[in-house]
């Protein structure tokens, strides 16, 4: 039993509630929320240390032993993602001190962000399928409010799509949870895994697995992503960054967790399906990114294409690809947040979201330009940067398993993303300024500095990939061998 396992969920919850009382004290709100997210990162590092030295940490809530009660499970994979989420959120909060207008800040912006973080961290840490649903809802409810906060015309339109699609998928989620409970009599993830391994993954259970695949795919933006580029572009940059970095990754985490821990018997059906969806996502997302001229939509399609790539790793599911998936997912959280934050500055700087109306940003803000270039190269996976090790492992692993189609799709993805991001660079940063620059954005250097830690982190992730590898392989071991997870849950 380790109560610290609940802390990454409780700290944001407490912060969110306290911030409601302080909703008129903006300065106080800002510092409390920053402190809280830093504290969360510290707790995540502490948990990482405990997981490394003592193995998987579990907490039986209210003292009820699994499978009767709800259990929180902090394994290496979950803790790495919690850590990345905390760091990303700290930077996004720092950015929003200047990047979000006071009107939004006054309307519970910080509370909502922390409620969302509680949902995100809860989804990573929970060991119970219904609790996962609850955490998803907590995260989605807050994201509904965040996406519409400010109430511009565009936000209202996109919110409608966003809410409809998510309510629909949540309904399907509850339905599949009910089916699964009817078929197996349990909702504890470890117990589900045991029961299905005992009785064999029969046809009906595979159908439920496919339903859950649809649910998580909608949340992750895997294949069913038509709503994503529009919705993520509507709110201000700090919110888009949080969404792009965290929400889709939670969906992806749920996919990886459920299809490595529970539904790993009928790989010919489910994992092939995931592979096909992944390739389709890469092709559609990649070409979508290339075809767009709106910065935020290009980034939205980038998020989608990367999700497609991680799902390829899941569909192959050998040791190397799973390691790659863990590494790439952590890196992708950080780099997508960074790109959205930088794009926010770019849009504020040029006064437009269309790249063919921009130009010459390199002349007056060189720092922004080079940061954007490095982030773009990291997304593509140029060697010294953080995108490389993950991508290498996934492609290498799929070649080992003889999945040449999947390896080819991974390479194609890099090319398409490179083209789409370099297009922003060429049209937006090179050339002559299209129109006289309006300097209404005085906080610009501070915004750059608040995104700098993320840039530093992706460089460090690339350079120190070797020392990071033990953590990543520990996470991948649990994914490839469900019995480690199951033993940890039932040990007490």
């Amino acid at each position, binding site marked *: *039993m380790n*109560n610290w396992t*609940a802390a990454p969920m*409780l700290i944001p*919850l*407490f912060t969110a*509630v*306290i911030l*409601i*009382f302080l909703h008129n004290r903006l300065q106080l709100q800002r510092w409390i929320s920053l402190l809280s997210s830093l504290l969360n990162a510290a707790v995540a590092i502490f948990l990482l240390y405990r997981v490394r030295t003592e193995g998987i940490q579990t*907490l*039986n*809530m*209210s*003292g009820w032993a699994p499978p009767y009660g709800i259990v929180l499970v902090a394994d290496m994979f979950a803790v790495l993602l919690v850590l990345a989420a905390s760091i990303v959120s700290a930077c996004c909060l720092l950015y929003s001190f200047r990047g979000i207008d006071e009107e939004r800040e006054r309307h519970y912006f910080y509370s909502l962000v922390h409620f969302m973080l509680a949902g995100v961290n809860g989804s990573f840490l929970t060991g119970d399928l219904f609790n996962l649903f609850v955490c998803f809802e907590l995260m989605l409810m807050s994201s509904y409010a965040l996406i519409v906060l400010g109430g511009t015309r565009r936000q209202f339109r996109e919110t409608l799509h966003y809410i409809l699609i998510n309510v629909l998928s949540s309904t399907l989620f509850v339905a599949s949870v009910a089916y699964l409970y009817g078929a197996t009599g349990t909702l504890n993830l470890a117990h589900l895994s045991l029961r299905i391994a005992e009785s064999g993954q029969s046809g009906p259970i595979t159908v439920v697995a496919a339903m859950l695949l649809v649910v998580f795919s909608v949340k992750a933006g895997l294949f069913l992503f038509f709503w994503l580029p529009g919705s993520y572009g509507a709110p201000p940059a700090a919110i888009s960054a949080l969404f792009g970095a965290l929400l889709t990754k939670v969906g992806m985490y749920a996919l990886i967790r459920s299809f490595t821990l529970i539904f790993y018997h009928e790989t010919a059906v489910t994992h092939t399906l995931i592979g096909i969806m992944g390739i389709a996502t890469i092709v559609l997302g990649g070409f979508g990114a290339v075809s767009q001229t709106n910065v935020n939509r290009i980034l939205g399609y980038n998020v989608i294409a990367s999700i497609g790539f991680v799902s390829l790793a899941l569909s192959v599911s050998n040791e190397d690809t799973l390691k790659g998936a863990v590494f790439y997912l952590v890196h992708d959280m950080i780099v997508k947040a960074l790109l959205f934050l930088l794009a926010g500055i770019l849009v504020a700087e040029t006064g437009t979201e269309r790249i063919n109306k921009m130009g010459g940003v390199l002349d007056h803000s060189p720092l922004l330009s080079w940061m954007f270039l490095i982030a773009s190269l990291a997304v593509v996976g140029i060697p010294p940067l953080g995108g490389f090790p993950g991508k290498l492992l996934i492609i290498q692993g799929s070649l080992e398993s003889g999945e040449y189609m999947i390896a080819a799709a991974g390479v194609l993805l890099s090319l398409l993303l490179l083209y789409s991001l370099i297009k922003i660079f060429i049209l937006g940063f090179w050339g002559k300024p299209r129109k006289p620059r309006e300097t209404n954005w005085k906080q610009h250097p501070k915004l750059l500095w608040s995104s700098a830690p993320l840039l530093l982190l992706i460089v460090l992730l690339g350079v120190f990939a070797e020392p990071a590898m033990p953590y990543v392989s520990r996470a991948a071991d649990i994914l490839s061998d469900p019995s480690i997870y199951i033993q940890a849950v039932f040990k007490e």
Partner: protein
Amino acid sequence: MPKGSDIFLQNVSKIVVFIILAFALYLFFTGHVSPGGGFIAGLTSAGALLLLALAFDIDTVRKVLPVDFKLVMALGLLIALCTGTGAFFFGEPFLKHAFGYFHLPLLGKTELHTALIFDLGVYLAVVGVTMTILITIGEDS
């Protein structure tokens, strides 16, 4: 609706509101071991306030209960969270509850448990949320 135009509804609700609130109180205390609890009691109380708002108007409800319901909700959440986290300090798992039997004046031997405090949090949160929603919708029309 002009004030005083619905004399029956207004006079009946003045009494019925208290009956509903008393029932809510009963539901609140009977919870935990039998059907009831903070959630349902909160909804029932909000129902009483809604009746008041229908019979008179929202301004009357505001005058009777001059509180910001958003803060009520936050207070409820805070109480519930603190009760759950309190277990940390006794080396117990999160959300673990404690109970004991006490001799209280009038009531005699009574079982008191920390889940009741948690329920109080739930109660306040539910009343806060429901009233915030109702007042927001009511203001728009």
